[in-house]
């Protein structure tokens, strides 16, 4: 090789930390006396590196499952910041706060640095040896592997490993996922995850889909939303109506927020269809029959939404087409969740939105790298198996079920029953603490991989129908710790224990990936005549591989036969309030709780920081004699937690809400002991068709404990009042401004 021929891996070795003699002055004051410090210098340096000027490397965000394409800003061997890749159809150069915090997952001081066997640091040889020993004594069906959502080449390798073990016990688990929606969408549109075109809609009616906050692919949706709001659009400025019992970030941005009675979302959708029929929209006979009884008057009584408002909503939808109706977490977290979602989807069919604002998305042409999505029902299966003692060796990667399973499932007790539990983890979280062996993972900024997003956004253009993409994840700097490993590397090492011959050519996961990509050069957009090295470098530098995907189609019709909307479950006189676990954009299911920027950035709606809280409607609070800052006990049949009360006007008076993701007992200094874990008190009530945990089906009672704190929050003592000053955050009615000529 030529002397100056750097490839990507060598580049990292050149620039990254490593060795022992890194003279890094810490924070604080450095000397200004000559000769006290050492100048940055190198042995050798690629020509594109100029000290003091940043280099950008494309990669893929790992903070949630949306798979945004990012660029790492790299200076003198350190990644400083993540920025959006402007060429990405998903995030188009933009990023959310959660994604920005990825650097804090990477530089986190609480990362695990060595393999831990029964709490003792061991070598990788010992760790992998222990796994081998345990596996040699058990049958394939006695091995279970719990993962989060996965895709790309890691998943392909994972599949091979499961085959090598002879185990079919792969459980893909996400504590918060649109699992019910996928099933309902499949029925309603013929595909689990169609493309939603908020940007093309004139009206968006969202039943609890927090698409600006934590739902599916929020950065993509936020950009569509910005288009949707533009008065200069041919369709004019769009109108957003949000229906949900607890105001989400999306609800806070609605033109009209409708605080509905929990669990009656589907009924409202049928009521709107009924009103549309009355307003002259022609309904197919089966649908007309299905909604016959759902007159706005009756629906109004059941949902708590005045019937005039239902009629108005129907008029709006009739007048402004195309519209888009979305079903989200708030509508699905019930026993009748998928029926709710189906009823809501039917609204799209009635309004003729399917095909216009609900578009078919393509899928990747390689099934082995297509995303495996997680759900909660798979955790139930694993839990049952563990309880029955079916599994001797259990692996866990990318999931923290000990934290996020309801206490009533007794997951931890069942988990520890297994002989040997292996956790792949970056932090010593609750699941890793309960494991026998903990394998320390590289951060997403140190690891190789490929990612295929579940929600497949497409660039504008004629080939959007068949657009699919695979994104690269590549190290943005050299490893911080020598003894962490990438998940691909660990899987490869484990595979070598089973099938040494097949994998002997691959020194590490990088060489596996490199080989796999070059073998499929043509499918990945190259030509057979392309030089391998050039193709690899170019593909990697772009970070996004557009694939000719398999075009899907959305079904144009939906039969009302599937729809049997059961009434919402009532409350219990002993537990008079409905608990809505809130999923915030930054905390999500709690996996990122140890990133201090997220703890310190206020919840957008309550502005609370560094703690969890209980949202109570001021009227309800007055009835119970609760004031802001009172420590209240939230008790369900399955348990109780204590947290500070926050009086919140954007919640149904019969509901209370507590954010999820707080209340860790492990993980690290920023997460541990902050807030209370609301997952723990959820009742084990499941959605009737999918078996998903019905997150909103827990009834609770609230009582004061007598303690009181001053809530730490961003808002001042006026609590969101502008105190009579007219021109702080100004709002104007749409008919009072001329938006069409704005620049």
């Amino acid at each position, binding site marked *: 090789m030529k002397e100056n021929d750097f490839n990507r891996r060598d580049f990292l070795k050149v620039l990254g*930390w490593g060795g022992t003699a890194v003279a890094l002055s810490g924070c604080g004051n450095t000397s200004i006396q000559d000769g006290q410090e050492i100048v940055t210098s190198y042995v050798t340096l690629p020509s594109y590196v100029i000290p003091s000027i940043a280099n950008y490397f494309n990669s893929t965000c790992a903070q949630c499952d949306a798979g945004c394409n990012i660029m790492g800003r790299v200076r003198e061997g350190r990644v400083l910041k993540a920025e959006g890749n402007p060429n990405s159809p998903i995030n188009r150069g933009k990023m959310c706060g959660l994604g920005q915090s990825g650097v804090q997952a990477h530089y986190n001081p609480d990362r695990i640095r060595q393999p831990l066997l029964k709490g003792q640091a061991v070598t990788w040889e010992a760790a992998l040896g222990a796994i081998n020993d345990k596996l040699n004594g058990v049958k394939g069906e006695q091995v279970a592997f719990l993962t989060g959502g996965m895709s790309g080449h890691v998943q392909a390798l994972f599949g091979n490993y499961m085959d090598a073990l002879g185990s079919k016990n792969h459980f893909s688990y996400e504590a918060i996922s649109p699992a019910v929606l996928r099933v309902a969408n499949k029925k309603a549109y013929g595909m689990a995850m169609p493309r939603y075109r908020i940007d093309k809609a004139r009206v968006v009616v969202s039943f609890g889909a927090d698409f600006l906050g934590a739902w599916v692919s929020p950065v993509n949706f936020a950009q569509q939303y910005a288009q949707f709001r533009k*008065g200069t659009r041919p369709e004019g400025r769009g109108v957003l109506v949000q229906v949900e019992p607890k105001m989400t970030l999306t609800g806070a941005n609605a033109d009209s927020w409708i605080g509905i009675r929990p669990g009656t979302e589907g009924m409202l959708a049928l009521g709107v269809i009924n009103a549309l029929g009355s307003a002259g929209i022609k309904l197919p006979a089966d649908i007309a029959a299905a909604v016959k009884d759902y007159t706005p008057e009756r629906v109004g009584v059941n949902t708590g939404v005045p019937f005039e408002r239902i009629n108005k909503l129907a008029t709006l939808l009739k007048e402004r087409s195309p519209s888009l109706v979305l079903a989200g977490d708030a509508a699905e977290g019930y026993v009748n969740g998928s029926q709710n979602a189906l009823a809501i989807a039917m609204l799209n069919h009635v309004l003729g939105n399917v095909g216009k604002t609900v578009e078919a998305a393509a899928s990747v042409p390689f099934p082995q790298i297509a995303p495996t999505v997680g759900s909660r029902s798979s955790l139930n299966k694993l839990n049952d198996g563990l309880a029955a003692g079916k599994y001797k060796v259990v692996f866990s990667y990318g999931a923290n079920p000990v934290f996020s399973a309801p206490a009533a499932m007794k997951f931890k007790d069942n988990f520890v029953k297994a002989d040997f539990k292996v956790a792949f983890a970056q932090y010593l979280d609750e699941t890793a603490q309960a494991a026998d062996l903990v394998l320390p993972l590289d951060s997403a900024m140190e690891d190789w991989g490929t990612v295929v997003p579940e929600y497949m956004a497409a660039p504008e253009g004629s080939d959007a129908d068949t657009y699919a993409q695979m994104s690269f994840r590549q190290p943005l700097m050299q490893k911080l710790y020598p003894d962490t490993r990438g998940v691909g590397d660990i899987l490869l090492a484990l595979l070598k224990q089973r099938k040494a011959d097949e994998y002997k050519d691959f020194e590490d996961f990088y060489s596996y990936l490199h080989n796999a990509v070059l073998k499929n050069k043509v499918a990945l957009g190259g030509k057979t005549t392309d030089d391998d090295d050039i193709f690899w470098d170019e593909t990697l530098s772009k970070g996004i591989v557009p694939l000719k995907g398999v075009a899907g189609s959305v079904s144009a019709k939906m039969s009302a036969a599937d729809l049997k909307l059961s009434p919402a479950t009532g409350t219990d006189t002993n537990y008079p309030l409905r608990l809505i676990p809130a999923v915030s*954009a930054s905390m999500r299911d709690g996996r990122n709780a140890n990133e201090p920027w997220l703890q310190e950035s206020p919840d957008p709606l309550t502005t609370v920081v560094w703690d969890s809280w209980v949202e109570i409607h001021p009227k309800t609070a007055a009835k119970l004699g609760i004031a802001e800052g009172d420590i209240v006990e939230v008790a369900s049949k399955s348990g109780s937690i204590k947290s500070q009360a926050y009086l919140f006007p954007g919640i149904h008076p019969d509901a209370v809400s507590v954010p999820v993701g707080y209340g860790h007992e492990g993980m690290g200094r920023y997460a541990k002991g902050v807030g209370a874990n609301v997952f723990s008190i959820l009742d084990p009530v499941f959605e009737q068709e999918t078996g998903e945990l019905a997150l909103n089906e827990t009834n609770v009672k609230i009582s004061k404990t007598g303690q009181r704190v001053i809530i730490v929050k961003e*808002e001042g003592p006026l609590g969101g009042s502008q105190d009579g000053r007219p021109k702080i955050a100004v709002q104007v009615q749409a008919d009072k*401004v001329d938006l069409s000529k704005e*620049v």
Partner: protein
Amino acid sequence: MSVSNLLENWSKFRHTHPVEDKGHPDWEAYPSDIKWAMAIDLDACTGCNACSVACYAENNLPVVGKEKYSHGQAMHWMRIERYWDESESGFEVDQGARFLPMMCQQCEAAPCETVCPVGATNHTEDGLNSQIYNRCIGSRYCSANCPYKVRYFNWYDYPTTKDVWPSPMNEQLNPDLSVRSKGVMEKCTFCKQRTYVARNNAKTEGRPVQDGDVQTACQEACPAGAITFGNLYDPESKVAQKWQHQQVELTKEKQDKDKTEGNRLRGYRILEELRPYPSVMYLERVRESAV
């Protein structure tokens, strides 16, 4: 205002109003072809906090923790304020909440500048309200006099405070600007380190700074693209076009359009009536009452 001008015109600096129908307080002495300004569309802003976190990442802002936060010592240069609609019966939620990203407004006649006893905060030729950390003595007069409350004081030596930047978190710090230590005031700089690089590169290439050469960290992150930033003196720049269309003029304390009945434009500046001549124009949030 530069050091020499500051020293030469100390008395004038204290007594005359900085804006007298000139684009810039020092306009005659230091003509500039750049005036950095911003426009924030509240109708696009979703209040998601991405800008705020991006600012933490870019500008070496310390995470102060719960206790110090409760004392009002959070260091968020860019913060999101949340307001509710109000009626006689209390807060109204039918049209959601109102979000307002608030950071230093880089006032042309900045109230903070005139009260600094050491001239540590003063105006630059490109229209920024600068904060010179090593000159600052920590009197905090500027913060007291800031109508927007966007100046943040280092009550502690954060680099040596436990769990602020524990190793290796300090390796994320941006070397393009200093990490402030105890006793100095700090605030949003419109990402000075980025505008500096843009001006430097343009100068090397022998051309003026063009629109798009520089993005602030908050603008770059904003998923809804609510933030526009650029050179107000460049008629081709997006920010200048927005200001012009909205008929908001930098040097006016009361906009002509506000005097006309039925004004159908939504650009405004916050606390304009106090005459600080802020460089950030907000666009009113729009809501429809169709439902």
